[in-house]
């Protein structure tokens, strides 16, 4: 399975779920479009207006730490983001992403490579392109190749089912 897109660099560690999706919206039943409009609101207020379909995020350590709120994943998915490459992810965000079929890849070498390309910490929309081969564990960008550890089989099954909802439906119907 291959993903290709333009790169956003979020140069920082510990970008938490409140920055990704503020708590004040968490207990309101918002539509996918409304969720997308609040994506990264407290980190980069311009992000939701400038993000495009198939964009790929590159960020530091412990991305998505904090709350269990799933909208932190789904607001990014609904805003068009196809994949997130981080040095590492917080556990709940990682699980939620797989369960929502949003590709999450841990590749500290690639993150370091891109972090060196911009000076300031914070958010930057770039012209760089990235291509991820999920099944082979390879990433291609700027004539460079990076590798990442392949997912556990169960995670792949859930992702390929289209997320945990579809996966559970299949379990219920005994498929």
């Amino acid at each position, binding site marked *: 399975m291959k993903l290709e897109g333009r790169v956003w660099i979020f140069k920082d560690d510990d970008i938490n779920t409140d920055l990704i999706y*503020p*708590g004040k919206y*968490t207990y309101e039943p918002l539509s996918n479009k409304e969720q997308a409009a609040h994506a990264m609101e*407290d980190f980069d207020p311009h992000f939701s207006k400038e993000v495009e379909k198939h964009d790929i995020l590159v960020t530091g350590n412990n991305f998505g730490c*904090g709350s269990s709120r799933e909208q932190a994943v789904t607001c990014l998915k609904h805003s068009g983001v196809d994949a997130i490459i981080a040095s590492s992810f917080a*556990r709940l965000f990682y699980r939620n992403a797989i369960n929502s079929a949003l590709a999450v890849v841990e590749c500290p070498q690639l993150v370091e490579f891109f972090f060196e390309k911009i000076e300031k910490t914070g958010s930057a929309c770039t012209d760089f392109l990235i291509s991820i081969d999920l099944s082979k564990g390879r990433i291609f960008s700027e004539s460079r190749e990076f590798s990442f550890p392949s997912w556990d089989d169960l995670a792949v099954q859930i992702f390929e089912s289209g997320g*945990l909802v579809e996966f559970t*439906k299949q379990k*219920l119907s005994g498929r």
Partner: protein
Amino acid sequence: MAQTLIEKIIAKAAGRNRVQKGEIVFVSPHRILSHDNSAAISKIFKQIGAPVVWDPKRIIIALDHAVPPPDERKALNHKIIREFVQEHNIEHFYDCGTGICHQVLPENGHVLPGTIIFGSDSHTTTHGAFGAAGIPIGRTETASVWAIGKTWLKVPETIKIILTGHLKKGVYAKDVILFLIGQIGASGANYKSVEFSGDTVSRMSISERMTLCNLSAEMGAKAGMVAFDETTRDWLDKRVREDYEPLSADDNAEYEKIFEYNLEELGPQVACPHKVDNVRSIKDLPHTNIDVALLGTCTNGRLDDLKIAAEIMEGKSVAPSVRFLVYPASKSVLLDALRLGYIEKLVTAGAQLAVPSCGPCLGAYGGILAPEENCISTANRNFKGRMGCKQDTGIYLASPATVAHSALAGHITTEQK
């Protein structure tokens, strides 16, 4: 081979003799909890298409985040949950005013040592105080467990934290865990289970252990636990009617890391904006004025927390520049605190008393900050914007004693006014 506590608990829940670190297993929880997010979970449950829930006795819902609902949308959210509860005969539903889910569950005897509690809330780690594995999961996963009664877990590595020594007067479990988060870091226990042990932990009350386990989430932990002992048994005896089988780690179990700290010289700690691992000794903090002081939440809203604050504030007045908010963690805590006179002391000193709930901690409802305001809080997160306003606000996390002293003084302090 010797096993850690989480390995034994996962093996039992998976119906196995043993499990290997790194292995993925399907487990069934003893209980699964959710709160105001249950409306969103019920929507996903409907998408899955299961005709009935897996077990209406094991699903627990407590409304605690936006209580009582401040607007139409949040009221509708609660209404959807009540309808779901009725439709599916959910046996344990705790409506607005009963308290915070992590308090209500153990109070009502739902948390048993040696079991797994899944929770659609990141502070589900709190239940580790009872020798259970409180494991946070997301909404979709919760809906899936409602449907099929199980979900996947990867057997984690375990970090052992050994705490020794008597704490100085004025130093509490909250100071201990803030200190540990400062040492270990916000992602120091990511994907890992944490076992707290040592003589300091043995002497701690259940409430203090709940503070430790609650905040282990802020090191990234999948679970934070204190093994079952006499303190646990005494507390559970009054509340639990089911039989249970406590588990403990084997003596020669394999740990990824072992940290050992002697805490005799530890002073009061504070987590400064905007990360929970940005921890300092309060004596090293520059003069910091505060506008709001918050006592409560799943971290520190229990009877002993209210007692500590009430004793500090007795006969004194909150600084005119400060709004002092008190949110008891549950109805039961509120009633005990009323009987024992703590509430009278706090309210006389100037506290604004709220319904048992947790809204202000996450800016869901109540206690919202204005631009350029600072808050000293007993809560668990100080992320930018967490209390509803991000414009030049700062949240400082500390113990109930520090919050009480600071509310009186108008700035962050541990000194008696």
